[in-house]
């Protein structure tokens, strides 16, 4: 027997194994950062995400001098590029825009009823601009929009994945434990759902949403759409695991003890399913985030005043702008980072939960 003073719950065991994966730990750090961004997004954004300035501004150059940080914005030189016929910009002679911490800004709503009039980092004077990742076609700061969009994109994904995970868990466990006709019919349903080509179906369903619905309703419908198919795969896995668990000796022992079905499911089967559910949850989130971005790229995005990464990528489709203004691809960075972080954590979690 080990002589640890602390008890070795399963949770602690998993954590210890998780810690060994540096990729997983890195991912976890990023996720914590993302959580902060979800809550404090508008505060962390250097500029007002909806304020419009000159369109398609090149990213500002950030520099530091004796007075602190500053940003340089490229100014039109008055001449045009002979090939693309776009105005040529240059940084020479640009005015230094001071950046300060705890900068004053127009009041905005942070979260619910909380309004603030300060930002973490911002321009020293209201109305000045500093575009870390450039400005989009309406002159809005991409970096700020990207930060604020984290909230919608992640919360949307979280809702969808919660719904699909709960449904998959419920259906799978029921089918696995009850067996018989219930199981057979549920399996047939799952078979049909799994046979649907997923992406085309989402495209189809998405295209059905009338253009005139309000932003909130649109999001709700989008969530429902993405949840329709997603639970089928998980339910199959859960069913398999439930079948295996129901045959475990400790379940037999519990029956021999006189435990009823409710107790067995609650105390013996469900806890042992949780690890699988948690891993599945963590690994499904990035796929939904990606789906939302892709659908947005195809024109199926949330509506302003909401901002999501998918909406930002909508500007990229048509490819007319990216030749001259490649920086409008930068929302891609946000998605990449999020997807990598979730996958890293999910992978490490999967290995920690079941190293065999």
């Amino acid at each position, binding site marked *: 027997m080990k002589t640890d003073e602390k008890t070795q719950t399963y949770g602690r065991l998993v954590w210890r194994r998780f810690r060994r994966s540096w990729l997983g730990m890195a991912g976890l750090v990023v996720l914590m950062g993302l959580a902060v961004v979800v809550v404090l997004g508008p505060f962390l954004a250097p500029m007002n995400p909806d304020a419009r300035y000159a369109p398609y501004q090149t990213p500002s150059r950030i520099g530091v001098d004796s007075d602190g940080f500053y940003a340089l914005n490229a100014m039109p030189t008055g001449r045009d590029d002979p090939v693309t016929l776009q105005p040529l910009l240059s940084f020479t002679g640009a005015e230094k825009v001071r950046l300060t911490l705890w900068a004053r800004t127009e009041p905005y709503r942070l979260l619910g009823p909380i309004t603030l009039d300060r930002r973490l980092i911002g321009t020293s004077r209201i109305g000045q601009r500093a575009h870390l990742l450039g400005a989009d076609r309406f002159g809005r700061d991409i970096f700020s929009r990207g930060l604020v969009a984290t909230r919608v994109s992640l919360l949307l994904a979280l809702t969808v994945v919660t719904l699909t995970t709960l449904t998959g868990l419920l259906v799978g466990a029921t089918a696995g434990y009850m067996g018989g006709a219930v199981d057979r019919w549920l399996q047939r349903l799952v078979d049909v759902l799994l*046979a649907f080509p997923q992406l*085309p179906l989402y495209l189809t369903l998405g295209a059905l949403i009338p253009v005139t619905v309000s932003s909130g309703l649109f999001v709700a419908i989008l969530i429902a759409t993405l949840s329709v198919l997603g639970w089928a795969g998980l339910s199959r896995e859960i069913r398999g695991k439930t079948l295996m668990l129901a045959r475990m000796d400790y379940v037999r022992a519990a029956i021999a003890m006189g435990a009823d079905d409710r107790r067995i499911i609650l105390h013996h089967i469900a806890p042992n399913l949780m690890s699988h559910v948690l891993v599945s949850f963590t690994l499904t989130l990035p796929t939904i985030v*990606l789906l939302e971005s892709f659908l947005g790229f195809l024109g199926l995005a949330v509506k302003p005043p909401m901002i999501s990464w998918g909406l930002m990528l909508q500007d990229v489709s048509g490819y007319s702008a990216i030749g001259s203004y490649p920086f409008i691809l930068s929302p891609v960075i946000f998605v990449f980072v999020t*997807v990598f972080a979730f996958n890293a954590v999910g992978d490490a979690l999967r290995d920690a939960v079941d190293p065999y």
Partner: protein
Amino acid sequence: MSVVLFLLKRLAAAIPIVVLLSLVTFLIIQAPPGDYADNLRTMLINQGGASAAEADAQAKTFRERNGLNDPVLVQYARWAGGIVTRGDFGFSLAANRPVADIVAERLPPTLLLALTSHLLATALGICLGVLAATRAGTWVDTALNLFAFVGMTTPRFLLALLVLYVLVFRLDSSQVGSFQSAQYAAAPWSLGRIVDLIAHVWPVVVIAAWGGLAYSMRIMRGNLLDVLNAQYVETARAKGLSPARVIFGHAVPNALHPLVAYQGVALPYMVTGEIEVAIVFGLATVGPAIVGAMAVGDVFVAATFMLVLAITLIMGNILADLGLALLDPRIRLEGGAK
């Protein structure tokens, strides 16, 4: 049980699913108010300069002519009946061509691309998987694992966007978005034409294969590590066989099993990848066709493509199961001696 019987059983089981699928698809597509005739009407007003009354009349005639007034189920029955009896998948309202033609034009490239990507991904994945497993714990393994992680998590359509940007706007490539350059389009097949084809489609294949390779590698590595610990591998070593023989004669064949089973999952994954990338690149395959059809309400095209894709995936699954049965004498000789 013989192979033929196996196939028949699986096909029979698949039919109700396909029928149900086609019905649901059709209903979904017909769900929103408005149909192609409305689209026609809008176009006539906006681009044709017709008045509202004229456009209405035209739309009405169009509807009657194409049977768009009938109840949904009747339309479905007509469509499904057409497929079964005549192989007639309906008429594309937008392109004014039989849907079957469009499918015949778009489906083969999609499948070919997906299959090529898949074969490439699997072959490379297996090799790298074997490499990683036999060098488990060394830096080679760690590097390959990292490579697999990046490959699996990289979103394919985002990668496609980046590659597109680089190719078109940085490298001025004119080979994106089509299958062949103009000069080869109608020419007879030659080496030059094949090279040209590859030059055009390589981004799609590579990007689609990228994720699949990582998957295959991971699975192969995992399986092989398990198998290398199996008793029969130790027996093989104890017989005095060379390491190569032990790995490739005994370990790898047994590790391939789950990989064959995984083919059932892999095919939809590869097809989805191909669709995503093709949409980004605008290549004339299934993906853009569906997107285009949905945008204008071209019912028959969209429904047919859905149906055809679903059938393809189901067939893929069945073939994968068949492959597994052929490979494994334990399954093949089901019912043999104890």
